[in-house]
């Protein structure tokens, strides 16, 4: 909820606040202001005002439940401080860790979606089949049709956005920021080129 929206909002109607509170509690997936407005038959501005009221009530330090804007909508989530008790109660961790192969595959899908398995394999340099299957099973990626050559394409899911604390995929930083500096790239290129040029000079390789 951005600050400028919170200002100058109409005084929220308590019945609407409570209804939205109940809908967010019931819904398995994040709800957009538009969806909430349709369900409550209220103006979107009134919905946004109600969400601002709820954001204050369900704020860190004020409740064990937090209102979060995630995966293209609003949803309630537990305060991470309560995780120890939750783990004892449900006797399992919230989500098992990702292996490096799964994380890499997920990063490629997140940035290049929709992307096919062969393309992921090409970028990683090793097969991504087992990692991709696990990500599918865990609901972090899903199929999104086929490429013109018939390969299944993958994209990330709302579940992915929820578990990674993202409002939308656009919140991911520009991938180019991790590229090496131009100097480093130039040095790498030169080293590779020199190795490649070995072929051009000297005897035809492999021929006695």
């Amino acid at each position, binding site marked *: 909820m951005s600050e400028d929206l919170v200002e100058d909002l109409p005084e929220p109607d308590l019945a609407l606040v409570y209804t939205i509170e109940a809908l967010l509690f019931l819904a398995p997936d994040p709800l957009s202001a538009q969806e909430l407005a349709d369900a409550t038959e209220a103006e979107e501005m009134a919905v946004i005002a109600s969400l601002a009221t709820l954001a204050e009530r369900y704020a860190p330090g004020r409740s064990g439940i937090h209102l979060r804007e995630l995966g293209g909508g609003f949803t*309630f989530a537990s305060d991470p401080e309560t995780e120890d008790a939750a783990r004892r109660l449900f006797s399992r961790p919230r*989500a098992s860790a990702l292996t490096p192969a799964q994380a890499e595959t997920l*990063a490629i899908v*997140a*940035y290049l979606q929709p992307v096919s398995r062969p393309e992921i394999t090409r970028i*990683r*340099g090793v097969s991504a089949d087992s990692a991709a299957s696990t990500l599918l099973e865990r609901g972090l990626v899903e199929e999104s049709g086929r490429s013109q050559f*018939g390969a299944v394409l993958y994209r990330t899911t709302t579940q992915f956005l929820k578990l990674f604390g993202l409002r939308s995929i656009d919140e991911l930083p520009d991938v180019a920021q991790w590229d090496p500096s131009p100097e480093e790239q130039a040095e790498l290129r030169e080293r590779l080129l020199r190795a*490649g040029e070995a072929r051009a000079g000297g005897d035809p390789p492999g021929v006695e």
Partner: protein
Amino acid sequence: MTLPALDLDLEIFSGPFDLLLALVLREEVDLLELELADVVLAYLDHLEGRGELDLETATEFIVLIAALLELKSRLMLAEDDEELLDIEPGEAAEELLERMLQARRYRSASTHLLELFAREAGVRFRGAPLPARLRKSIVPAGEGSQDPAVLGQAMGRLLRMPPTISLRHISTQRVTVAERLHHLRGLLRRGRFSFEEAVRGEDRMTVAVTVFALLELYKRGEAHWEQHESFGDIAVHAVAAAAPLRASAG
């Protein structure tokens, strides 16, 4: 990262793997004289010695060794085969560089994702099903609300064969046993066929692979065959599902 810990003792090089890599890139070790298979074997010994497989290191090793293999295979092409080589050495290096950068880019991005994941580690969401009385209110989509054409279109997509890979630059035809098995099984549905007709018009490689496929069918007890004279036609029969395996190759 434990790749530097991999010590090699090869004919032309002895020392840690990362040093070898650096030397190859600086051309101080001739890639053409380097038996990459020995490097792989040394790595396997190294793994066995450690008793555990570190996937991250293994991945890195595979990427590096694959890059070296590709570079070496390009080096090994004789110069007068120029038309077979659609990529110049410079381009090869560019391509390799691009690939390394890309792999590195998404590896870094994955680190960022893991940080986000860890940051959110204690956050849980409610997964409880809707109360029964609300579930009842979910009306199923109306009758006839779906267009059967959706199914026909899906079939059309599934019938599309992927484009065949151009193998002009490779002299051997790529024929797999699996393809020939499929072909033979198709013929076998009729109960019997002659080997002659199974390979009519095919090149020698395909004929050879078809023989392997036939052996496979025999091994699996799906077919047996008879050949009445050397170099004569081979008659292949389907074996009934319940029939015991019979050695009847001639």
